[in-house]
């Protein structure tokens, strides 16, 4: 089966659950920004949950199917087959020549398209996730462009889920957990990070989300000796404006870390649109 890109949208890349075997060598984890939705997309069509899917960013683009297939789109956007609106988060049968159109409709940043079988993609450090900075993985290491044609091979099939309930509302309060330098921050910052609302800046992408609207004081030194970081980490550089490390973030960093987003909430945080407000709450282990 082939899938032809008629319009690539804002940024569409092949992503799976990412890679951890390169973390000691500077290779970021990568993978879907909202893992829960990626797993769900695969479950709906009966794929292994870690199969590569398409991650569609905001305006998701248009795609033509070269054959009959079973697909699913997970997320909170508006999805059409030809001109008919179809149900999200459910299994959909498509026919040869059908055109899929996805738009986030201002509800969340990422939607995921799964196709029954396995999208052929380049592996890099054990994962098919596209890593644009190194131009590796996925489809020639880059986002999809008009005219690209993806091949979908038959894959291992599991029993598929018919329909899944996905909350239409983004989790409004994101849980954060202590990080290595949490105790080095003044108490005022530890309070303020959960009392204030932060705005997701337009300068946010798969590497990191900058937060604005509220500045933190930061630690006395402002820097640390570089050490290993994980996605979800909230760094506070000397400017006081926090940066949240996301899927493609560097594996090491030298800014103090006030906290880290709970892995179960990281996808909900990733869905925040530029300009959207976010609140945090401390989560005790």
């Amino acid at each position, binding site marked *: 089966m082939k899938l032809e890109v008629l319009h690539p949208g804002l940024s569409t890349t092949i992503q799976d659950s990412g890679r951890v075997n390169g973390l*000691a*060598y*500077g290779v970021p984890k990568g993978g879907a920004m909202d893992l829960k939705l990626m797993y769900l997309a695969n479950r709906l069509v009966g794929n292994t949950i870690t199969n590569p899917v398409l991650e569609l960013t905001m305006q998701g683009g248009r795609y033509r199917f070269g054959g009959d297939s079973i697909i699913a789109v997970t997320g909170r956007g508006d999805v059409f087959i030809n001109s008919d609106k179809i149900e999200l988060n459910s299994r959909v049968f498509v026919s040869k020549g059908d055109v899929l159109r996805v738009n986030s409709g201002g509800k969340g940043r990422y939607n995921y398209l799964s196709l029954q079988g396995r999208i052929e993609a380049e592996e890099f450090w054990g994962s098919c996730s596209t890593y644009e900075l*190194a131009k590796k993985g996925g489809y020639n290491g880059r986002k999809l462009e008009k005219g690209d044609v993806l091949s979908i091979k038959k894959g291992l099939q599991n029993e598929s889920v018919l329909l899944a309930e996905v909350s239409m509302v983004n989790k409004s309060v994101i849980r954060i957990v202590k990080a290595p330098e949490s105790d080095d921050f003044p108490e005022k910052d530890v309070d303020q990070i959960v009392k204030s609302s932060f705005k997701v800046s337009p300068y946010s992408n798969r590497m990191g989300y900058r937060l604005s609207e509220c500045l933190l004081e930061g630690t006395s030194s402002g820097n640390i*000796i570089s*050490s290993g970081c994980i996605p979800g980490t909230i760094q506070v550089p000397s400017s006081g404006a926090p940066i949240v490390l996301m899927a493609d973030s*560097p594996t*090491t960093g030298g800014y103090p870390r006030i906290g880290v987003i709970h*892995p179960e909430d990281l996808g909900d945080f990733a869905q925040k649109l530029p300009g959207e407000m976010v609140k945090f709450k401390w989560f005790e282990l």
Partner: protein
Amino acid sequence: MKFEVKPYGTDAILLSFGDEISLDVHNQVKQLYAELRNYAKKGIRAVIPSYCAVTILFEPAVISSKDVVELSKNIVCNNKSQKYKKYKVRIPVCYDKHFALDWEVVCDYTGLKWEEVVDLHCRNEYLVYMLGFIPGFLYLGGLNDQIRIPRKSSPRLKTPVGAVGLADNQTGVYPLETPGGWQLIGNAPVDLVGANTAVVEMGDYLEFFPITKKQHTSYSKQIERILVYET
């Protein structure tokens, strides 16, 4: 050597050996990293070594953070049994002025002739303290003080793949095309990123050797990694 346990979310912890960069601390980090990698099937998902710490990602359903700490303590206490291997990596560098975009700045700042700069850069043996920042980026120690130079006041928007640079007490190779503020002194026709296995490991020793522009063009991109000794 003792470490401090720092919490890091629900499925990671950081073990810190203080905040002083030294060979002793590096060897301790290296040993812990090497040993912990053998516990992948027991819930250790990944280990990120750095100058003075290791960040450990674990599977909470398989191993608790308490048990990760216990395991690490045992490894650190039993370090006598550790086999020690030394690998050396040789990186070819073309110091031709075609690649050495900042050669004049470096000569002016250091008061050295270009040939002297090249000689000093090739003479020392460097220790790979850690990898990070971007794939294949090596944090090297051991730069000769005479060729220390501050980074550029405004970074280049694009630094080519393989660019070799100087910045303060560091030297290194850009494995990817990225923006960068280092003073460029040459280019290494090698692939440091790899595709599935490590090209260079933390703890390796490294030396640069000069090649001509012609050799640069025909170089295979492969890096020589030689076992120097084992005890």
